[in-house]
């Protein structure tokens, strides 16, 4: 029998990138928030500049909840389940994966909110890929702009604006939607190689610019600027220059006295009453069960766990899982086609040992609808990202471009000369939702508490594969222009697998027949249940999801604070 705890106004399930942001506007409005986090606070000891630990062994944090719940995956309903991974892409800690992520903090482009209507308008309805369930967002970029701005300043984002109130600044991204003001900090610094790449892009008529990063380029909010020490990729920051919610919004929310952080709280199910109204959540700490009653719950536990918790929370009112009477939970799932990378070998050292993956040069000319798609057989595109990031084990494991075997004296001679001479581009590409890509509960695999894990059924379709091939051509052209002497392309994707960029399953939209949450992020079926994170996003754009997930989280929390009497009213 679970111990019933004292009632609170709001429970946030998961204090990561999204939940950690949502706590702040609520706490500032005087609403009492309990933040249930499966992980713990981490210390600087956890942020050692140690490649073996961070990158090879997956930063084994103390609490292993996520690693015991890794989703299973298969390409489609008739294909076999793939071998299960050993490290979950997400981790449990106060601050969640925002502690060790790359911290690229992009706004989506205007087209990403209007994929259907813009495609129909410009190219005709036949150009929407067959089988895709993509919809326009219930609002455009304009609606989200103030929240993007809020996060950029509250959390701290470095970058170069490209479009302030419609005025294009050629130092930034000329394709970005209009913003009201510049970033609060200048972009992270460049280096010789990045400048060479930028110069090559200009030579072929493209528009290179430094990307946005939730990393301090100078002291900000009494925290240090970046030290560029090279261990930011799946590593935490030893000087708190990476703007995880653990060092930004969460402590500020705690300082109001209205946020209680409960670490090591493993949430299992969400409860409802006979009228289908949410009453609170069940969680387990060290084998002891608790019930935390709340007037409102915000579910913020990453896409796989958001979907799983809803599907596991079955009741009389919701026999198919919470908020799933329209059978939309788990639908419209997709993950970024981040694969199909391109690696280049240069005849000179790139001096990339010290840097971070958010320090780089981007080209957006071939993303979204930034170019005329009349002559191509796909919609959308990709963002080209070249960054400065290298560590020893990764460097020696890189491609030998067919110029040497993988071991022995010839290999040793190759890496001695070339360990610092290759570069892999990060190519994020438009990925659409389709009828037959979805999340559900695995019929066989269970976590240690006996609950089924999430199952991913997903594969990239023709549209995604055509974009990938097109983008690889562009990337190769760029590398060659900068002097690359060999190019290696990774295979174009098939099965989606488990991803750090996982979207959908609780999509946001006005139509309850095709969407789980409304335009404010609250369930169409359970009025006092909100959902945060990329699981509400209906399109991916060609760039990292975190800033958008955070802007949406702030907007949902802000809406809740402003409408507290309507949404948080007592029911009994």
């Amino acid at each position: 029998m679970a111990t019933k705890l004292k009632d609170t106004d709001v429970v946030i399930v998961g204090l990561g990138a999204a939940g950690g942001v949502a706590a702040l506007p609520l706490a500032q409005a005087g609403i009492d928030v309990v933040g249930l986090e499966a992980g713990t606070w981490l210390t600087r000891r956890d942020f050692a500049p140690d490649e073996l630990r961070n990158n090879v062994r997956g930063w084994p944090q103390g609490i292993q909840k996520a690693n015991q719940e890794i989703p299973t995956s298969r390409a489609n309903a008739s294909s076999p389940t793939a071998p299960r991974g050993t490290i979950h892409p997400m981790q449990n800690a106060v601050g969640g994966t925002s502690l060790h992520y790359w911290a690229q903090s992009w706004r989506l482009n205007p087209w990403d909110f209007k994929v259907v209507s813009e495609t129909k308008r410009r190219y005709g309805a036949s150009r929407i890929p067959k089988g895709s369930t993509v919809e326009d967002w219930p609002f455009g970029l304009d609606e989200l702009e103030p929240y993007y701005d809020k996060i950029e300043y509250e959390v701290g984002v470095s970058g170069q604006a490209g479009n302030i109130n419609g005025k294009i600044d050629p130092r930034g991204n000329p394709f970005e939607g209009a913003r009201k003001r510049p970033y609060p900090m200048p972009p992270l610094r460049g280096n010789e190689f990045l400048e060479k790449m930028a110069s090559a892009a200009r030579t072929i008529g493209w528009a290179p610019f430094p990307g946005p990063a939730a990393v301090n380029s100078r002291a900000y909010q009494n925290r240090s600027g970046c030290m560029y020490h090279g261990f930011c990729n799946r590593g935490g920051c030893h000087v708190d220059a990476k703007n995880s919610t653990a060092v930004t919004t969460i402590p500020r929310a705690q300082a109001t006295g209205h946020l209680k952080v409960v670490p090591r709280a493993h949430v299992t199910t969400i409860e409802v009453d006979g009228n289908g109204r949410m009453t609170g959540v069940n969680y387990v700490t060290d084998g002891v069960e608790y019930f935390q009653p709340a007037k409102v719950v915000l579910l913020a536990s990453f896409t796989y766990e958001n979907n799983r918790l809803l599907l596991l929370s079955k009741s009389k009112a919701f026999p198919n899982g919470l908020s799933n009477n329209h059978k939309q939970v788990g639908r419209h799932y997709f993950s970024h086609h981040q694969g199909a990378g391109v690696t280049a070998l240069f005849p000179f050292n790139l001096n990339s040992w010290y840097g971070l993956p958010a320090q780089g040069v981007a080209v957006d000319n071939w993303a979204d609808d930034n170019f005329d798609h009349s002559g191509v057989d796909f919609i959308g595109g990709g963002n080209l990202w070249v960054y400065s990031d290298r560590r020893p084990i990764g460097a020696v494991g890189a491609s030998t471009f067919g110029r040497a075997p993988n071991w022995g004296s010839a290999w040793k001679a190759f890496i001695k000369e070339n360990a610092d001479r290759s570069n892999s581009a990060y190519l994020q590409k438009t990925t659409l939702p389709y009828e037959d890509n979805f999340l559900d509960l695995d019929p066989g695999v269970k976590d240690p508490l006996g609950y089924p894990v999430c199952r991913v059924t997903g594969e990239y379709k023709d549209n995604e594969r055509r974009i990938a091939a097109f983008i690889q051509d562009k990337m190769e052209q760029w590398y060659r222009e900068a002097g690359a002497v060999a190019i290696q392309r990774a295979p174009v994707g098939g099965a989606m697998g488990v991803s750090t960029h996982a979207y959908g399953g609780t999509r946001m939209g006005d139509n309850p027949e095709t969407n789980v949450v409304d335009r404010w992020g609250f369930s169409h079926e359970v009025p006092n249940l909100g959902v945060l994170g990329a699981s509400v996003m209906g399109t991916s754009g060609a760039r990292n999801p975190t800033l958008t997930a955070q802007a949406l989280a702030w907007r949902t929390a802000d809406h809740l604070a402003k409408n507290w009497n309507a949404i948080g009213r007592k029911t009994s």
Partner: protein
Amino acid sequence: MTFISRRDLLKAAAIVPFARGFQSGARPPVENLTSTEMQLLDAIVARLIPTDANGPGATEALAAHYIDHALGNALASSRPAYTAGLAALDRYARSSRGAPFPQLSATDQDSVLIDVETGAATGFTGSSAAFFAMVLSHTHQGTFGDPYYGGNANFVGWDLIAYPGVRTMVTATDQKSLESKALKTNHKSAYEYDFIKDSERGRRGPASLGKRDDHGD
């Protein structure tokens, strides 16, 4: 702006790196493998990253020692694969080349390893290629990982690829020095920096640098 002071840096530099204790040619004791298995593994890693005109290799890095140690903690789940794989490789060398692997010529050792790498070697449980890939990956870890874990002794792996070393701060001036080949190499483990030891002390009592603990292991 940083809390890593000059004094901290100097203090950290005064600490003798742990792996250097084995510098004099003495090999560290075997911890998890049998001595026969260790002898075979030593011979394998010596061919994967040979000691040659380009300098020290996996032997000097103590890569086999790294693997042997890790099989007692972080790589414990690979222990059965090593037991089975090393025994199969031993049998395969004897049956196909007529002698135990360590006694074969370098050329014959390489030809055995090529068979194992390509999956052509017989007598393995499953594919010999999976065993090869595992050993190669662990050999990289033991040669190019932080010396804290018992490999990359005397930083020979990092020196081979001219990695300028673990630092906690790299200024724009440092980056320019690197680009003009003027940056001095920093021979230091991540765990020689005081900010890590201090937080360790706060969390788990006295600092135990040199005694490898459970974090990441």
